[in-house]
């Protein structure tokens, strides 16, 4: 069960580089329970907005965020010292639903989107045997492989073939699904074009698919309406009704290729 949304103090415990531009931060905070798929908004001192990150893991009183260095905000966060206290609004958004009964969960992570699959793999591993399909441009960007192996059967791919099949995760998913004859529930996170392709493929195969979307946010709690996404049920807020949506509900033509 998730705890109530609160603005909590979180103290940086540990900062690591997972690759040249991916940072992992452990934050010590009290009474923060979350479900896979939920995120937090963390203070970035000196800036006007907080930054949203999926909650990647939890051990005792510490939660973990993992992010790619993209702009000034993420660079600043990566340079803060251990012991720094940051206000953190959490837990936010909706969780990933349970897989349909008698289906095998396939988790698909592309690039930094792999992070979102870590807590889900961990949770599902107690009652299921999740398959984790993960891809990146090259081997050094393929993060969290060892950790995910603790909770799932990992299959990798890279654009340049330096690890696993030389293809993207959409092709990997197609190959996997075609090879076997089981029933699946697919969970995916990654760049929008990847999610769009996975959404199309799973819909054509009548496979239930949930995607976790990324969008620029300001409030994180559904008040400002900045993170809108068009769905078949009208405009939804990525921070509130999402970030997890059923892929078939998204109007992909209105989703930006890159944010």
């Amino acid at each position: 069960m998730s705890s109530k949304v609160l603005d909590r103090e979180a103290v940086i415990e540990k900062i690591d580089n997972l690759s040249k531009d991916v940072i992992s931060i452990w934050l010590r905070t009290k009474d923060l329970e979350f479900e896979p798929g939920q995120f937090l908004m963390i203070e970035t001192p000196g800036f006007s907005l907080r930054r949203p990150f999926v909650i990647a893991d939890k051990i005792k009183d510490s939660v973990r965020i993992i992010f790619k260095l993209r702009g000034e905000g993420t660079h600043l966060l990566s340079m803060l010292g251990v012991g720094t206290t940051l206000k953190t609004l959490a837990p936010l958004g909706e969780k990933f639903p349970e897989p349909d009964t008698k289906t095998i969960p396939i988790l698909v992570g592309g690039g930094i989107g792999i992070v979102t699959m870590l807590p889900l793999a961990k949770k599902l591993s107690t009652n299921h045997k999740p398959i984790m399909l993960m891809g990146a441009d090259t081997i050094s960007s393929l993060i969290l492989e060892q950790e995910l192996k603790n909770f799932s059967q990992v299959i990798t791919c890279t654009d340049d073939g330096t690890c696993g099949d030389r293809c993207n995760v959409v092709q990997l998913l197609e190959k996997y699904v075609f090879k076997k004859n089981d029933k699946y529930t697919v969970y995916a996170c990654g760049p929008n074009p990847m999610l769009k392709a996975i959404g199309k493929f799973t819909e054509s195969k009548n496979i239930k698919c949930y995607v976790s979307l990324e969008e620029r946010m300001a409030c994180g709690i559904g008040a400002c309406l900045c993170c809108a996404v068009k769905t078949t049920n009208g405009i939804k807020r990525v921070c509130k009704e999402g970030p997890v949506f059923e892929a078939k509900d998204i109007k992909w033509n209105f989703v930006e290729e890159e944010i």
Partner: protein
Amino acid sequence: MADLKIKLFGETLKSPLIMASGVFGYGDEYDFIDTNLIGAFATKGLSINPKEGNTTPRIVETAAGIINSVGLQNVGIKKFIEDKMPKIKNSKMKIIANFFGKSDEEYIEAAKQLNYVKEIFALEMNISCPNVKKGGLACGQDPAHVYKLTSEVRVSTKKPLIVKLTPNVTSITEIAKAAEDAGADAISLINTVKAMKIDIRTGRPMLGNQMGGLSGRAIKPIAIRAVYEVAKVVKIPIIGMGGIFSAEDVIEFFMAGSTCVQIGSAVFYNPDICATIYKDLNEFCTTNNIKKITDLRGKAL
């Protein structure tokens, strides 16, 4: 304890801090903060028909500020009254209904519909909308149009009417005067400053709508100047806003001529910003032997 209460439209607000339109949704999202120290909140801008808003991205951060292009997405007045009002009508904060229209007729109709909602304390008319009929010219930029529209809306509702001004004009005093002459009960200013950011990696505008409105610390000096200028020419109360992040900012707005203030984008950084500011305001007033915050009003004029 200094006296931080203010009077507006004959009623007492327990705090001079009002949540600005756009950052506080319909008042039911921030259920985890202390609303005791917030005098009122303005709803997300409402229109007769629901509006989908602009394509994303709708928000981008810039130096000391943010640019948004939400595009007035809202559920429409009917749904607001049916679905949202029941959730907020017992709020400890007074409710200000912010509204806009695509045409003068829509503004008037919106004011009429909101007039029937008992729990609404006041109406705030957003005349910074760039999509009104009149020859492509934003209605809030033409004093004659502001006068006509305000007069017509004024007689369409019994609620106190606040006119919210855009800073994107040559002479804000002329617009303010036109609103006052037409019967506005208060002026609120400033709305966001038209702005833009380009992504130098792609060479394309960052926002889906290309342009948006700048808010945050960056616009405070512009807002102070505008409040100061307007305070010199109107007698009705001024609700100042633009980049307020601290008690010191609030003091500055009071000194420029504000009766109370609105807090906008600061709430994104600190959801409990009003509690912080309220506490600091009290401390500032106590330290400086100011008994009532209203004593500071217009000190710089």
